[in-house]
């Protein structure tokens, strides 16, 4: 008998039953098996998992039809208190963001003990021993100290290990993991995936793993369910789904995954230097009047050149200083020392006033398309803001805004609408149109496609490449995603702890990495052995 059997599950918006978000899905998971539920945002994968846990937000979503059988027991028939009991002892869940899922004011050891105290009759000594054993199992160092730590004293990876320990301490039959590694760096992600796999083998847990990342799927799944807009599109063994998907949607999803094999760099056509950064340093913090505070060297002696019409990628994990460099170049923050030349002009020492003429020449596209557009302005108002600041008559700017919207693949008639009426991908296009309205020489894209689904991501990347070919703009592309970097960048700089450890043509750096850190990053990239777009393993 399968551990979890979801039969014909329908979930609808509570107030109007005709608005269904999940249309009858059927999922089956056996003991010791890892099943991946994949899909893009809005596909209903998280809603399905929440329904299974009985955690659908009350008053907004509810199960309208179907059965959820955990070891043959229909969870939908249980009372809230019975369900609460099952949630701890028979099934448990780990979430995407380990910081918010832990209580910040209770020591992590106590938080795990609490689970045991609530559901078992173990003595204090036994409880403590069991917690320590669990912390040991999830591979944490110095477990006595960790147990006495508060969540903020731990790293993201450590916090996620705590979450896993908490989820598995009662040895549930089913573990639901909702994007548990999405907020983590690749090297940490690799360790966490390995840990889940190991613990699963040891305890025979059934794992429902929810992810949007095909790399992770290739890495961890036994079987895969593909969801799209509330429907189950396709299911099967992982090999079969990855190598011979039957449905168009799965096919499209897989072919949108950027390849880790770098594309060939384009020839240098223009000789003109768009951006020249020399020995850039940025130190945060530092001595106050009386105290000597701790300083953080966020960027150390960073130097690179970027010629017009080319794309330079800066890759690295969180805290590597890549965003600091981007923000220094944009002069959102002031560099501590070093030179930044835009089109041959030094801008690192300029004041706010002196900078004004140069703002026009460098523009930025931000990570989060939901926050980078003012929700109270129509997109036309947002797009014309820059040109009007530089003296373009509003009427002319409006006409140009219409053209730009068409250039980024939106109808000109969309101009009068507000940002909330657009999807994430569309908003990112609008943000790009806004940057292009200034006709800049340099576009800084800070994780500009990281918040987007793969299919949308590939469209936005294509758009950037197309615009670059047409206008000869230089792009500084900040990303943590090596796949994206491999596909869009001509050159890549790899950063670690504020320093550039390797820089060169993309094909060289990612194709034949010299520095051990680059090698570590590449080997941690999930699904590196699979060529998704061609539905086959990467040729050795």
């Amino acid at each position: 008998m399968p551990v979890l059997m979801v039969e014909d599950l329908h979930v609808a918006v509570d107030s109007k039953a005709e608005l269904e978000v999940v249309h009858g899905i059927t999922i089956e998971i056996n003991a010791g098996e890892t099943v991946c539920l994949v899909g893009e945002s809005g596909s209903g994968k998280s809603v399905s998992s929440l329904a299974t846990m009985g955690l659908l937000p009350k008053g907004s979503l509810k199960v309208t039809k179907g059965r959820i059988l955990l070891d043959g027991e229909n969870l939908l028939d249980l009372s809230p208190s019975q369900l609460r009991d099952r949630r701890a002892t028979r099934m448990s869940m780990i979430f995407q963001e380990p910081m918010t899922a832990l209580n910040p004011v209770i020591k992590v050891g106590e938080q795990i003990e609490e689970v045991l105290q609530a559901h078992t009759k173990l003595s204090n000594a036994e409880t403590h021993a069991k917690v320590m054993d669990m912390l040991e199992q999830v591979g944490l160092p110095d477990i006595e100290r960790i147990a006495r730590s508060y969540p903020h004293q731990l790293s993201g990876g450590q916090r996620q290990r705590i979450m896993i320990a908490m989820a598995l301490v009662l040895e549930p039959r089913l573990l639901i993991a909702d994007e548990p590694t999405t907020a983590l760096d690749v090297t940490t992600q690799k360790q966490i995936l390995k840990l889940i796999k190991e613990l699963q083998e040891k305890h025979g847990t059934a794992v429902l793993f929810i992810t949007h990342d095909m790399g992770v799927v290739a890495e961890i799944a036994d079987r895969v369910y593909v969801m799209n807009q509330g429907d189950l599109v396709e299911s099967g063994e992982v090999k079969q789904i990855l190598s011979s998907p039957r449905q168009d949607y799965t096919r499209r999803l897989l072919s949108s995954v950027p390849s880790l094999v770098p594309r060939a760099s384009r020839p240098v056509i223009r000789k003109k230097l768009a951006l020249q950064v020399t020995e850039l340093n940025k130190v945060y913090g530092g001595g106050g009047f009386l105290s000597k505070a701790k300083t953080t060297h966020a960027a150390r002696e960073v130097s690179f050149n970027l010629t017009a019409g080319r794309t330079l990628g800066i890759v690295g994990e969180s805290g590597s200083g890549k965003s600091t460099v981007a923000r220094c170049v944009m002069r959102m923050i002031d560099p501590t020392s070093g030179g930044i030349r835009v089109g041959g002009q030094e801008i690192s020492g300029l004041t706010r006033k002196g900078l004004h003429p140069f703002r026009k020449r460098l523009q930025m596209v931000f990570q989060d398309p939901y926050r980078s557009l003012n929700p109270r302005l129509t997109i036309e108002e947002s797009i014309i803001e820059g040109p009007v600041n530089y003296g373009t008559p509003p009427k002319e700017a409006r006409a140009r805004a219409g053209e730009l919207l068409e250039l980024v693949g939106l109808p000109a008639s969309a101009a009068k609408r507000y940002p909330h009426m657009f999807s994430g991908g569309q908003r990112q296009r609008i943000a790009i149109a806004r940057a292009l309205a200034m006709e800049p020489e340099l576009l800084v894209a800070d994780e500009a496609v990281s918040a987007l689904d793969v299919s949308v991501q590939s469209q936005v990347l294509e758009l950037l490449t197309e615009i670059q070919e047409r206008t000869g703009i230089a792009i500084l592309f900040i990303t943590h995603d090596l796949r994206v970097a491999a596909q869009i960048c001509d050159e890549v700089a790899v950063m670690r702890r504020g320093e550039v450890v390797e820089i060169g043509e993309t094909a060289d750096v990612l194709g034949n990495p010299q520095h051990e850190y680059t090698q570590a990053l590449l080997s941690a990239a999930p699904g590196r052995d699979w060529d998704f777009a061609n539905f086959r393993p990467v040729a050795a």
Partner: protein
Amino acid sequence: MAEKTLRGAFPLSTRKISARIGIAPIIAAVVLLIIILIAIFAPLVAPHDPLLQNPIERLKPPSSDHLLGTDNYGRDLFSRVVYGARVSLVIGIGVTILSVVIGLAVGLVSGFFRTADAVIMRIMDGLMAMPSVLLAIAIVSLVGASIWTVMAAITIPEIPRVVRLVRSVVLTAREEPYVEAAIALGTSMPRVLWRHLMPNTFAPLTVQATYVCASAILTEAILSFLGAGVSTETPTWGNIMAEARVFFQLKPSLILWPGLALSLCILSINLLGDAARDVLDPRMGKRED
């Protein structure tokens, strides 16, 4: 422009609003509206001159001529309570406008410019430390009592509360990428403040304004009661109660009626404020369990 910046500050439809807040605020709005209308049309509503003394009619019980009876000078209590609404509302609204306008301007600057922030906030801490009643007594003893001195005395300690609120909103909003994007687009600082940051403060300010208004009306009544407020030639709820203090045991209704008017007025405003908060900030609303 003003219309454009306002749009989007109030995100819910009318149907959703009525579903969320219930009946109490609607009653409150009606009560407040009646008080406002009475204040505006006081000469028509009041049957007598509130200042007209009539020694023969001293301390009379309610009658058809004197709806609520008369006070120790034989003045008609109902007319005096009606006229008292005028002072209360003028002070309440006046203080609200003054403190919101000044507080908004100072708060925007304080939230956006770090160098100005340190200085401004210390001044605000200083202002906040002054109790409005003591400040009012000090000002009144220096320049004499009038509606203006009372208003100033109540406004000064209210300003820092508004400044703190606006500053906290600006501190959060200035980290939003769309503000950075505006700076990257070469938008001038005053314009960033006006166009991108200020609209974020409207919703919390609306809520705060109702509390400022209620507290101003109450403080005015306290000041009048203590004799540090508007002079007794102008009837206010506070000074009607102050004069009636001596006759409290003889005729408690002299304090009861102005007190009731004051309570109703403040309760209505506070209920409206709570409703505004529930509508504008869904997280503070009732949990749907």
